[in-house]
């Protein structure tokens, strides 16, 4: 349904161009839940914005296509995009506090969204607004509330409700739970999953918290330094992470059960994208790097249903 192929995004800066997203490809089928995981600077938010055609200068799509239901979104005009925005694909932003207009009520914002994408009567708008709020578990009386009157969890839910106004085929979510506490996070994730199963839309969920998404996503894509490091079925990746970065990430989560063991995290920092090192981008921090990792930049290599960007997986020299 959504096919991203070879997507490359550059930031045009005075000091030179920075390639924030480098040749990323993935697909999302109908009703599928794809998680995109990565840390700061990996390009996941840029990727999301590029896929939703929301990039603003100095960011620009340098190459690649984003095909949604057969149509390439790259290069479409605003009017053409408007026709499919919110009806077929909608976006939930990271911080509801920043994404919701603080001076208008929730109901008014819903009305704006509906009016922007179709002709409806006031009754239809009111009815649909109440309906979507009930879907996310908020009392429709809050249509009259202002964002600051709602708690963080409720604000986030109303963002999701707004994204569901037209029951789109795809909802893109950019770290919708990062500002919430752990109980609210869990509750929201469960809610999203339930809605997804009930209405059958696909979800692309971007997060930096791998453990959060482990129980909810069907497939997982791990990004590092603008590239896809590993992509495959969630369960496979968690049971047997192939890329050393994925391994390191999984091990960086202290658990609350089981023995207390000292952890290492991943030493070092992500590379400076304006001066990308030769060879594998993860090599400076990789505990398994060998000589050729500094010279050859690995491609994505299929390994038992998962794609992984690692030379040592490719030649089988790294035992799992």
């Amino acid at each position, binding site marked *: 349904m959504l096919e991203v192929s070879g997507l490359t995004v550059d930031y045009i800066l005075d000091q030179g161009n920075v390639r924030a997203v480098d040749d990323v490809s993935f697909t999302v089928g109908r009703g599928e839940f794809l998680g995109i995981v990565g*840390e*700061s600077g990996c390009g996941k938010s840029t990727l999301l914005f590029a896929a939703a055609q929301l990039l603003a200068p100095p960011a620009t799509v340098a190459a690649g296509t984003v095909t949604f239901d057969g149509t390439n979104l790259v290069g479409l005009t605003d009017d053409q995009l408007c026709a499919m925005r919110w009806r077929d694909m909608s976006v939930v932003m990271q911080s509801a506090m920043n994404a919701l207009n603080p001076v208008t009520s929730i109901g008014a914002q819903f009305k704006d969204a509906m009016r922007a994408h179709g002709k409806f009567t006031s009754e239809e708008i009111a009815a649909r607004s109440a309906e979507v709020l009930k879907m996310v*578990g908020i009392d429709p009386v809050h249509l009259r509330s202002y964002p600051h009157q709602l*708690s*963080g*969890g*409720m604000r986030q839910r109303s963002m999701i409700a707004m994204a569901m106004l037209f029951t789109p085929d795809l909802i893109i979510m950019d770290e919708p739970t990062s500002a*919430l*506490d*752990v*109980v*609210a*996070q*869990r*509750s*929201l994730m*469960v809610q999203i999953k339930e809605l997804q199963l009930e209405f059958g839309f696909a979800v692309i969920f971007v997060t*930096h*918290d*791998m*453990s*959060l998404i*482990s*129980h909810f996503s069907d497939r997982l894509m791990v990004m590092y330094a603008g590239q896809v490091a590993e992509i495959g079925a969630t369960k496979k990746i*968690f049971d047997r992470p192939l890329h050393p970065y994925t391994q*390191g*990430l*999984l091990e*960086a*989560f*202290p*658990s*609350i*059960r*089981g023995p*207390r063991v*000292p*952890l*290492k*995290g*991943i*030493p070092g*920092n992500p590379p400076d994208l304006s001066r990308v090192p030769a060879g594998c981008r993860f090599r400076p921090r990789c505990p398994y790097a060998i000589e050729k990792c500094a010279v050859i930049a690995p491609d994505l290599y299929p390994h038992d249903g998962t794609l992984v960007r690692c030379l040592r997986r490719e030649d089988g020299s790294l035992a799992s």
Partner: protein
Amino acid sequence: MTDDSPRPQLLRADHLTRHFKIGGALSRRTLHAVDDVSFAIGEREIVALAGESGSGKSTIARMLARVYKPTSGEVFFEGKPLSSMTSRQGRLRYSALVPMVFQDPFSSINPVFRVQHGVLRCLKLHRPSLSAAQRLEEAARVFEVVGLNPNMLQRFPYELSGGQRQRVGFAQALAMRPKLILADEPVSMLDVSIRIGLLNLMAKLRDEEGVSILYITHDIASARYVADRLIVMYAGQIAETGPIEDVLTHPRHPYTQLLLSAVPDPRAPLSVAAETDRGEPPRVIDPTPGCRFRWRCPLAIDTCAQVTPELAELRPAHEAACHVAQTSSEEVKAFT
């Protein structure tokens, strides 16, 4: 009802309370940010203060840092009450012994100066006997202790990553030779793979530099990784406290159980119990007596709505403020 820690006591909070007036000038409403909180921190230990937003943990930190004055209650440091520290000298000495590390690595360092600025100022203010050259030496030394290359002293904050900036925060605190560092969510804004490095640093400061740390967080897993004792806060009050392993393996307070069940753990199957709870911590405005968790608690009984529970020891050194837990002989499970 003081928290009994086997180590010599460094800091003791005694019935700390902090209220804020909210609403306009004519309003009579009070926000009870912290209500009747008592605990102690010993030498060479890391105490985790855990809770969600609105639980009062940051307010407690700020009272300990003397940013806020308590509405009532007292803080004793090395046996002396803070309210008796009125001279500038006394206050300076306290801020050196009990410094604070902040949450946001991107706004806790002044972007205009080089990174050494804060450390050098700390040294200038609190160790005036040092010469300028000695100050630079000491700055380099504390940078090394926190794992930063001393040549980073000359850099500007924008050249450092989030993790490195947080280390600078710890270096600033260390430069003053503290006894207790108040760390207000020092890793929440960092990437996951960087957090471990900072947590390891905190453990190292406790073990090698002999510094105690009050680690404020909402992430119980990281608390478990690094802390010796745990204080769980809810709605401005202490819900449960004790040695961390004990509290996490035998949580007595239903809120602690809820928190534990909500923590995402990829190695464990999804816990169903937490689903029904929406995670709406209360804003405590003009509260009535009774347990503040009762609306979310599946085990609430009549007493819970009438009498505010107090901390009582249920296991050795392990206290919880819950009527049901206190009156039941076996372990109660509100949320599995």
